[in-house]
């Protein structure tokens, strides 16, 4: 049970945190700065891929390189 506790807490928080938002009330969600694609361009993505041992988590596909 102790192992499942973080997952249970996460699901409970998400369930409690979700609020119904009508389509006409989503103007702020549609602001360009909220768009995940604005987080990083190809240059920055390549830099992080080369200089950090960890990869993943950004949802974009890149090619490999022999950069380092």
């Amino acid at each position, binding site marked *: 049970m102790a192992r499942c506790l973080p997952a249970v807490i996460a699901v409970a928080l*998400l369930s409690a*945190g*979700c*609020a*119904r*938002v009508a*389509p006409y*009330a*989503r103007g*702020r*969600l549609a*602001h*360009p*700065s*909220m768009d*995940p694609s604005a*987080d990083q*361009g*190809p*240059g*920055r993505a*390549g*830099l992080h891929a*080369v*200089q*950090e*041992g*960890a*990869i*993943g*988590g*950004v*949802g974009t*596909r*890149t*090619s*490999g*390189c*022999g*950069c*380092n």
Partner: protein
Amino acid sequence: MALPNPAPARLRRLSYAALLIGATVNAQAPPSPDPSAVRWDGSAEVSGYHDSDHVTVFTPAARARARTPSGWSASGGYLIDIVSAASVDIVSTASPRWTEVRHAANLGAGYDDGVTGLAATGVASMEPDYVSWSAGLQLSRAFADKHARLSLGYGYQRNIAGRTGTPFAVYALRSDRHTVDARLELVLGPATTLTPGLDVMFESGRQEKPYRWLPVFDDETADRVPPGASIELVDRLRLPGRMAERLPDRRRRVAASARLAHRFRRSTLVLWERAYADGWGMLANTTDARWVFDVAPRLSVWPALRLHNQSAVTFWRRAYVGRFQDGRVDVPSFRTGDREHGRLWTATLGAGVAVEPARDSRLSLQLDGAYTEFPDTLYIDHRWATFVVAGFSTRFR
């Protein structure tokens, strides 16, 4: 006798003129966008990187996408990496500065009707001594009245590393990567989204770098090699000759991430966190934050912060020990000199500005400064770096 006041007549003439001008301007105004027209997005960026280890990278990139009103889309992109390096790893093997150019191109196609989406991508990357190509498929579906969107993806990547001037048929190290990822975008409120994600990667094949040669030390001297030991000290203490890098043939990686975005009245806060673990024993966490402030209707500025911290892979050694046995040197099965396999932490601070000179056009500039500490590596124990990226994006029908 009072003279007639000419003002009303003049006003009338002015009103007619204003109406005429208004009618002319209206007639010359561009028609409102045709909803049945194809919508185009285009973007270009130029980035530059330089660090205290004498590595410079210049990367121009461009991308375009077309979308039809029915939901079909096609995209393409191209980038060039121009790398010039005289890093301490190169100098330590008595090699001169080298400059290399990488070309990478991607193509994509997809369909999204607002509820269900399907996208396919292909990427190819070429260098004189390295070829990589990948393909991916992503399926997404919105549910709960578009309060949640689940995306599932699969990607395959093939890498071939060789040596410049030697055909791949003669010498090549091949490796593969399979990636499965899932992401769930949740609308938490009228201004907040949360996107947890999970990426699982399976890698197999030869991943070591053909040019990476490592110094070897005997039992007694290995402990006397301090972190950041200079090239001269390493050359004085090491055994004759160097050994090639060798990595395990299989690696499983898992990255769990979450992105929280909140739009305030005149600013947007984006927080991103990643926890990472892999089968080589590396653990890492990365935090990325950006707070965009609208300082004028078409002008925004932001500070940015990124913190990355990782442990070393289990077979990492600052100084590998070699033993002479029967006329040959016995060295550890797995060994690496890649600092990104060792323990390190990086702090990056940045600031950016974006202007919109016209509707649907955007110019941006961001400047970052980064400090990386390598507590357990040879030659250098830290690195300073600057990164600047200038971008332009536009959309039209």
